[in-house]
């Protein structure tokens, strides 16, 4: 017999329900001889696109559907026995709402119907602000969508009436369904081998079949699948536990283990048992299967035609300012207007500009993308009108039309950017223009877009959050009733890796060795953790994607409101929407844009000077010498893109002097170029240490700007074009093909033929091909780099000319990779006075204040902001700022009405010092004011002289306590650098400060110490795992690298301590390039403690301890762990350490006041 079609299948997209990915389900269905498979996830269609693609690959026909909770037919107040609110642990999750499966039957109508009911189910959860949203529920009147088939299974209201042995009631409940769906109604029988009459029992299945015959409704057989393979019952149990927030009860009802994707024979056996139990002959099983097959055959939704895969819809032209003209006409006239407005028609090469513009317009007309450009231009105009900084990024910056429409800032002709890299006749993919806006106002931009185009055309994009190792450990641990302390410890000791790598990481990572020793203790934990790998566990709004479409959007994507802001959000993620041909505009919130906007606003507020960053003329010529001096000094903390340790090192070696140098610098600092070692030859050629070579003089033109080294995609395009005369659009296609090893071979032959035909000799061809092959897939798009370099220059200019305002902006919007306290230390080093928090002077955001007329920073100091106080709400901060000035403590208390903990914190960090008395006395007064305001006790305030607060004789905060209060409350050491307290001890040890380190010789062994500011394990050319750490010791930054051989001894301490003492060897690679290679590391906080308690004699034994932790794992023979030599080979050809490029462990510092907020940075490594 032919295969069985499963009509009811949940994938992992059914959050915490399905245990298999859609791809796996499609694969298994095909293996088990089925030719159709339905995907009916709970409450979501998010898996549909991946499922459709997987089915196409596996060669089976996909059916689309969804399983939804439905409301009562007569909306009445449901009688629920009110239970007492639990004193602890919360109430049970109520899952008693009946659930029904819907299948799309009639093509696009069916798909639209599905989208409609899913949106309706989500729309009704009017949680409102603050309240947690109710689970999705489809109100009964909304069920009547067209083109759907409905399966009433054991979980439906009819099913539960049958389970309760009430066919009469079932008949009554069936009536409204029959009315609504008539012939498209099916009753679904499921047998999972359970006892009794509940869902999954043989008796309920038999009753369903019997009832169907009696009611003349067609029965179908399904297996209510939730995992692909047998034996995954325990995984389903864990998911159930995680969903219901209870532990797995091994004595309670567990998953039957039967809900897998059974093959046709197994389903026939199931059918036979059911019909026999229902009292029919065994042959009736074939009729049941036939009905099932017929139902599947009816459901005809074609992924291409009906879901809209591969078609594009843009907003209607009249919405984007085209009026009654066609979009193309409107675009052409706007571009021409831009040409005149920018004066290119009067510039040096007007002809070039006009020709380029017309070429581009032709390409756009060819694809019919004019509306798209107008849409983006409209959005950019709207954003600019709101006074929000906006900039385009991405390859779109290479289009002159984009520049003329005002979307992109940089002039592509001037910078030699190519349209073909962005869009050409031969490129069929959707072009993509990303726009950067101020992060703080990103949601405003979203609202403006929704307001302009309407909710029926705009939706944000979903981003599924998937299980990675830490969450998997937490959920599985909780399900297995493990000790919460153990769960916490295990979860935190893992780096942020995939769940499926859990056991491999235990084997191989040195910092997990201790955990690996007790691995056996936790039994099934590891297996289950790995089984959860990459399953979605929640869904969030993608931080930048916005869908823009015509009015048919809601018929093509299910939409749900986002939890916080209530924006409409498509259930599809960014890859899905691309496949669906939905136009996505990436609106990225960039913190640096916000920071610069704040800095400019501060300068205007305090000095009246209007700074227009966009009017700075830096793209041509030499730019501002002070700015480049700053960049060359590598003190670029806080500057966009060039602040990371690696970038500071590169900037030091490259010594940029023009805008073009910045563009090159940014392009070079990418994983590709770093991996391909393009940096060294470039630096050598730039500083004249190596001659500039070109493979052929014809190629000198494109390669001259980068001294013969290929850096940009545009150069590859030019080379291929020059050598083969194939046209730049074809050359771009060739360039894309280079990253695929298979097509590379073909391209090589093609390239050799065409170049030879053009008359190049074999040697030139071979040399050129070498370059093309080596760098082709690594280079960076110059358009990106130019777009990046603009804010880089702007931020560096601000830092050079308005340092105080620059730091105010940085601290307010926190754009960088470093903790705020490091920025503060940098400000202090650059001579910007730090003014402490003061309720009478501080505003909500960081401000600048005139301190003196002279001084390095022009006399401007940085006044700390109220918003940085731990736990302050926006309303409280605004209230305090609005009520200024305050005459006394009482005045402050009564008018600003701070909460008591907030007032205490303010007192601790000295924000109330102007009211007299010491900080502890102030706290006591506050406590009494608080008591008094609650009507308890109260009475007179001991104030002396009305204004000043009287002393209560409490000891004032010691200097160390003040520092720790500052760190605890503000996460910044305001009064002085926290390392200053340890200076004496560090001098005893002979530790070299960051400032003195600059004079250190190459190869010298030194001791350095400091507070950890950043840790990274980026991918490295050598394929090794290197831990990069930056320490701050108050006099500057020390960049450290730990190589493989020191990991056994150092990794754990580096990841899990905050204050570090490191022994290492100085490495110099240039006048400004210096780092220390770590050999041994100690937790400085621990040493300081020992010093304080037992003097130097107590420190000595700790230092004398062997740095390597003993290997007590029974010995893995043959080299053991750590550098096992396992390497992941990237598709681009270079090798990577399996554990590089992931976020390291160590969220909690074993020392230091960092329990609540981050004091150092960790990033997944690769920049950009």
């Amino acid at each position, binding site marked *: 017999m032919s295969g069985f079609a499963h009509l009811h299948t949940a994938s992992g997209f059914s959050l915490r329900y399905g245990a298999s990915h859609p791809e796996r389900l499609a694969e298994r269905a095909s293996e088990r001889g089925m030719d159709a498979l339905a995907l009916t996830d709970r409450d979501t269609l998010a898996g549909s696109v991946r499922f459709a693609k997987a089915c196409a690959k596996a060669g089976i026909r996909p059916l689309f559907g969804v399983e939804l909770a439905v409301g009562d037919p007569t909306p009445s107040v449901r009688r629920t026995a009110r239970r007492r609110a*639990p004193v*602890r642990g919360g109430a049970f999750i109520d899952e008693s709402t009946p659930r029904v499966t819907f299948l799309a039957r009639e093509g696009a109508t069916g798909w639209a119907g599905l989208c409609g009911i899913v949106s309706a189910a989500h729309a009704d959860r009017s949680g409102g602000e603050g309240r947690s949203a109710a689970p999705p529920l489809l109100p009964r009147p909304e069920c009547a969508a067209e083109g759907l088939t409905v399966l009433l299974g054991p979980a439906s209201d009819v099913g539960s009436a049958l389970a309760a042995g009430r066919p009469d009631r079932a008949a009554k409940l069936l009536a409204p369904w029959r009315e609504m769906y008539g012939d498209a109604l099916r009753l679904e029988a499921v047998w999972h081998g359970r006892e009794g009459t509940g869902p999954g029992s043989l008796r309920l299945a038999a009753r369903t079949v019997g009832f169907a015959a009696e009611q003349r409704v067609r029965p179908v057989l399904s297996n209510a699948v939730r995992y692909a393979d047998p034996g995954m019952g325990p995984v389903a149990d864990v998911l159930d536990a995680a969903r219901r927030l209870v532990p797995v009860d091994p004595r309670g009802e567990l998953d039957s283990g039967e809900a897998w994707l059974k093959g046709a024979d197994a389903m026939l056996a199931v059918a036979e048992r059911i019909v026999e139990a229902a009292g029919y002959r065994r042959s009736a099983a074939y009729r049941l299967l036939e009905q099932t097959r017929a139902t599947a055959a009816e459901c005809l939704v074609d992924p291409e035609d009906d879901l809209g895969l591969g078609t594009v819809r843009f907003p209607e032209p009249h919405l984007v300012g085209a009026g009654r003209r066609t979009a193309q006409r409107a675009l052409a006239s706007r571009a021409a207007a831009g040409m005149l407005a920018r004066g290119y028609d009067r510039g040096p090469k007007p002809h070039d500009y006009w020709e380029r513009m017309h070429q581009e317009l032709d390409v756009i007309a060819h694809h019919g993308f004019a509306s798209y450009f107008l849409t983006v231009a409209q959005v950019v105009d709207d954003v600019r009108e709101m006074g929000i900084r906006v900039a385009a990024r991405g390859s779109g910056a290479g289009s002159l039309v984009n520049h003329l429409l005002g979307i992109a800032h940089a002039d592509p002709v001037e910078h030699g950017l190519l349209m073909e890299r962005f869009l050409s006749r031969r490129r069929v993919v959707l072009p993509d223009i990303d726009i950067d806006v101020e992060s703080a106002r990103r949601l405003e931009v979203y609202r403006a877009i929704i307001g302009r185009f309407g909710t029926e055309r705009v939706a944000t994009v979903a981003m599924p959050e998937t299980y990675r190792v830490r969450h998997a450990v937490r959920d599985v641990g909780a399900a297995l*009733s493990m000790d*919460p*302390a153990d769960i916490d410890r295990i979860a935190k000791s893992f780096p942020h890796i995939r769940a499926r790598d859990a056991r491999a990481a235990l084997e191989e990572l040195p910092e997990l060795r201790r955990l690996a020793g007790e691995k056996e203790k936790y039994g099934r934990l590891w297996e289950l953790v790995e089984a959860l790998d990459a399953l979605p566990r929640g869904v969030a709004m993608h931080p930048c994607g916005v869908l823009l479409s015509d009015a048919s959007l809601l018929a093509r994507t299910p939409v749900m409101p986002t939890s916080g802001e209530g924006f409409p959000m498509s259930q599809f993620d960014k890859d899905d929407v691309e496949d669906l041909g939905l136009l996505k505009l990436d609106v990225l919130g960039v913190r640096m844009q916000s920071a610069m906007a704040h800095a400019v606003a501060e300068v205007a507020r305090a000095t009246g000077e209007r700074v227009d960053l966009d009017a700075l003329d830096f793209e041509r010529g030499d730019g501002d010498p002070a700015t480049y001096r700053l960049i060359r000094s590598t003190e670029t903390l806080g500057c966009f893109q060039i602040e990371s340790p690696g970038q500071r090192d590169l900037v030091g070696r490259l010594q940029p002097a023009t805008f073009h140098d910045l563009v090159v610098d940014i392009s070079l600092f990418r994983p590709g170029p770093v991996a391909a070692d393009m940096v060294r030859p470039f630096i050598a050629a730039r500083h004249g240490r190596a001659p500039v070579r070109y493979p052929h003089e014809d190629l000198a033109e494109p390669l001259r700007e980068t001294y013969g080294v290929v850096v940009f995609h545009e150069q590859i395009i030019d080379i291929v074009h020059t050598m083969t005369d194939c046209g730049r659009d074809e050359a771009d296609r060739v360039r894309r093909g280079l990253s695929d090893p298979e097509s590379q071979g073909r391209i090589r032959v093609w390239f050799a033929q065409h170049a030879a035909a053009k008359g190049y000799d074999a040697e030139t061809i071979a040399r050129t091909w070498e370059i093309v092959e080596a760098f082709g897939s690594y280079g960076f798009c110059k358009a990106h780099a130019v777009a990046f370099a603009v804010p880089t220059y702007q931020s560096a200019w601000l830092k050079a000319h308005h340092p105080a305002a620059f730091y105010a902006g940085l601290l307010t919007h926190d754009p960088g990779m470093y903790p705020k306290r490091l920025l503060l230390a940098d400000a202090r080093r650059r001579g910007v006075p730090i003014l402490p928090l003061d309720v009478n002077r501080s505003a909500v955001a960081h401000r600048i204040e005139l301190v003196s007329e002279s001084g390095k920073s022009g006399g401007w100091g940085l006044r700390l902001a109220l918003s940085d106080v731990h736990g302050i709400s926006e309303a409280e901060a605004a209230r305090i700022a609005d009520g200024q000035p305050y005459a006394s403590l009482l005045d402050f208390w009564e008018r600003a009405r701070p909460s008591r903990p907030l007032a205490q914190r303010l007192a601790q960090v000295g924000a109330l010092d102007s009211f007299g008395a010491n900080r502890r006395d102030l706290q006591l007064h506050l406590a009494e004011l608080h008591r008094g305001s609650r009507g308890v006790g109260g009475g007179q305030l001991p104030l002396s002289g009305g204004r000043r607060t009287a002393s*209560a*004789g409490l000891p004032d905060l010691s200097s160390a306590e003040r520092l720790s209060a500052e760190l605890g409350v503000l996460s910044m050491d305001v009064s002085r650098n926290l390392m200053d307290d340890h200076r004496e001890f560090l001098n005893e040890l002979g530790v070299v400060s960051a400032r003195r380190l600059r004079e250190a010789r190459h190869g010298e062994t030194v001791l350095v110490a400091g507070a950890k500011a950043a840790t990274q394990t980026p991918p490295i050319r050598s394929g090794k795992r290197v831990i990069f750490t930056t320490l701050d010791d108050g006099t500057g930054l020390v960049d450290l690298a730990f190589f493989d051989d020191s990991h056994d001894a150092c990794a754990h301490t580096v990841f899990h301590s905050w204050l570090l003492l490191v022994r290492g060897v100085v490495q110099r690679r240039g006048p400004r390039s210096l780092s220390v290679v770590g050999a041994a590391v100690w937790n400085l906080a621990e040493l300081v403690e020992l010093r304080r308690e037992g003097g130097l004699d107590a420190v000595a034994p700790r230092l004398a301890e062997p740095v390597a932790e003993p290997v007590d794992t029974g010995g893995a023979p043959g080299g053991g762990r750590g550098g096992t030599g396992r390497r992941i080979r990237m598709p681009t050809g270079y090798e990577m350490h399996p554990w590089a490029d992931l976020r390291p462990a160590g969220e909690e510092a*074993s020392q230091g006041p960092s329990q609540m907020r981050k004091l150092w940075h960790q990033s997944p490594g690769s920049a950009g």
Partner: protein
Amino acid sequence: MTILCVRFQLPPGYEAALPGLLGLLEDFTPVVEALPPDGALADLRGAERYFGRDAEELARLIRVRALALYGVDCVIGAGPGPLPARLALGAAAPGAPCVVPEDLVVDFLAELPVAALPGVGTATARTLCEYGLDTLGRVATAPLSTLQRLVGARAGRELHEQANGVDRGRVVPNAVARSLATEQPFPRDELNPDRHRRALLAGTEELGSRLRALEKVCRTLTLTVRYADLASSRTGPNGGTRISTTRTRTLKEPTAHSPALTSVAYAMYDALGLQRARVRAIALRAEGLAPADQASHQLAFDPVDEKLRRIEEVADRARAKFGPHAVTLGTLAA
């Protein structure tokens, strides 16, 4: 006058061994005050002279005897009053008793954190630490009025006195077993209310029979439910304290009758309304013990009550003869 403060290192769930250990102390001095669940104060008055040994030697003696007789180790602090003795306990270790001589009391106190004082709980300690009064030395120097503003008039005065080494406490001999406790742990996070009630029933049955064996009745019953969750502030590498809920009810009349205890325990449990709470243990404690012959009992017309009491009496006799598990409730036997 020398006071010893002893803490026996009882394994969890071995509270029942405390009365025997107190008996051991009573071999040395009649003035022994039990500090349940695992400690005691002993006033050595004449003992030092009687035994011809000083406090430290006596402490070693007590430890050796406790180890020999009960296999239980203990920690001992000694001082001129109950307060210094208790505080000394904190600085002592098994085999290393800490003795605070009278003239060094104030110096000894000055170094201690405020939370070490009995009567200063986490809340008071937190308040004091917030104001920089983290050691007793600092508390001692703070003005009395300020202390009173911080923690209230009476508590402030007591704190002030105690921090200055003024100890008004005495060792008051009390009934050896003022309370009886039982704890039923669960092997995993238990949410099932039936199993919870079963644990309650087992607990009240045990308490009842132990009370009757001692010929005592209890006045109040305390229920403690311990959860798997850790207090959020205390999670860390060393684990943390488990969160628990405690409820106390006074019985209608003092009794040792198991069904009466059971119904009170059930009522307290039901009032918690637990649903998803991950329960790791349920503990019951019978408090306010008094001799059974002094208890009054309200007679009822309902013969069932009378019958239950008779059955209980018979069951008790059977247990006395054949061991504690000879007769159990059917619900618990399954």
